[in-house]
Each structure stands twice: as structure tokens, then as C-alpha cells.
């Protein structure tokens, strides 16, 4: 299991702290993904997002994901930090940082981490737009 920082927090995320965590003398590269709130979605003007999580399960899945990534690729450290609560336009909702001896593994692991987090981890975002609000990914039940 690579040394990992897994966290869900209501406060603003710190890129500097996350990068500092994964930095390591044994690593030759760090790949970082930052998810930020975009000002538009499907033709709607987005005002802000609000994130909710099921923390014990989300943290558990994120830890399992870190372990899985450590088995798949030779990486040094990994950090996955997700914010909950309101996230304004341009602010970071998630930071994934991976360090590894060689850059190829860092790129692959970081990509895999965010893709898998988005597909499986019990975290939800509610989009507040000009005219209303909607849970992103909510099925269209009006028919």
C-alpha cells in the first residue's frame, strides 16, 4: 500500500499541502489532477455546486482505490482529497496527486484514480443554476 492521504473535508482544498504530501526523494515526477467548478452545464448557467458524501463508505472506497492503484502501478505516494459543501465557480472540488519514480506511472495512476472515483465513490453534486437546482446525473423522471 503506497503512503496515502485520503480525505473528505468541508474546507477549501490546499494544492500546496497535497503536492507536498506526495513529493518524495524516491519520486521523479508528480501528476496532479484538480477538478474545478465550471460555470456552465448542458446550456445552463451554473451558479455554484454543492457536494454531499456518505463519508464512511466514500473514505473506504477511496482507500481501496489507493491500494488497487499501488498494486497496478509502481507509485510512491498518492493523495485523494474531496471537498464537500458549497464549491464556487473556479474552486477545486477534488485534488488527486500521485508521485512515482517515472512519469508514465504517475499519469496513468492519476487518470485511473479520478475516473474510478467519479464512477464509484458515494459523493454527489447538486448544481445550482439560473432558474433552479438539480442533482447532477439524476435520471429524468418526468415523462
Amino acid at each position, binding site marked *: 500500500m503506497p503512503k496515502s492521504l485520503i480525505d473528505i473535508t468541508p474546507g477549501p482544498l490546499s494544492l500546496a499541502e497535497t503536492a507536498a504530501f506526495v513529493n518524495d526523494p524516491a519520486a521523479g515526477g508528480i501528476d496532479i489532477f484538480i*477538478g474545478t467548478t465550471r460555470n456552465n452545464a448542458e446550456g445552463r448557467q451554473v451558479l455554484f455546486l454543492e*457536494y*454531499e*458524501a*456518505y463519508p*464512511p*463508505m*466514500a473514505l*473506504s472506497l477511496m482507500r481501496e482505490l489507493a491500494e488497487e492503484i499501488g498494486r497496478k502501478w509502481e507509485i510512491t505516494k498518492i493523495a485523494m482529497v*474531496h471537498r464537500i459543501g458549497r464549491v464556487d465557480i473556479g474552486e477545486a*472540488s*477534488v485534488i488527486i496527486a500521485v508521485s512515482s519514480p517515472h512519469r508514465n506511472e504517475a499519469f496513468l495512476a492519476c487518470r485511473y484514480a*479520478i475516473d474510478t*472515483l*467519479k*464512477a*464509484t*465513490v*458515494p*459523493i*454527489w*453534486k*447538486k448544481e445550482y443554476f439560473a432558474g433552479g437546482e438539480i*442533482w*447532477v*446525473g*439524476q*435520471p429524468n*423522471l418526468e415523462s
Partner: protein
Amino acid sequence: MITITVRLFAGARDAAGTASVVLSVAEGSPAEVVLHSLVQKYPKLERWKPYLKLAVNQAYAKPGDLLSDGDEVAVIPPVSGG
């Protein structure tokens, strides 16, 4: 009978109007019984049913997984983290 605590999240919580409910189910019930019970209690969840996943004690569960007394079952609508 066994006691199950159900937690609902996001759109499912809004549709049901509650974040948490305690259910009594028959011993040896499969997890999917929770969805049936919830839909009976909260009819607005009926349309959500095809889109809901279940987790038992913080791990994704299959509808046929058997429940034990004291389990926490979470109703997981489509996730949208990141």
C-alpha cells in the same frame, strides 16, 4: 424480525423526504427487500428504483445479499463526485 437502519442520499433523500429510517424486516431477507419497503413507505421513490444501488455496511451490495440484524443499508442514487 431484524432491524435495519436505512440511509438515503442526494436525490433519493429528497424524493423520500427523509435521510434515515429504521425498518423491521424478516430474518434472512435479501437487501432488495429494503427497496421494496422504502417504495411502499415513500411512493415517490418508485421512479428512482431502477437507478438506485444499495450498500450494506459501507460496501456495495447485490440485491440478493442477505441482511443481518443491525445492518446499515444505504440507498445510493447515481454518483457524481469529482
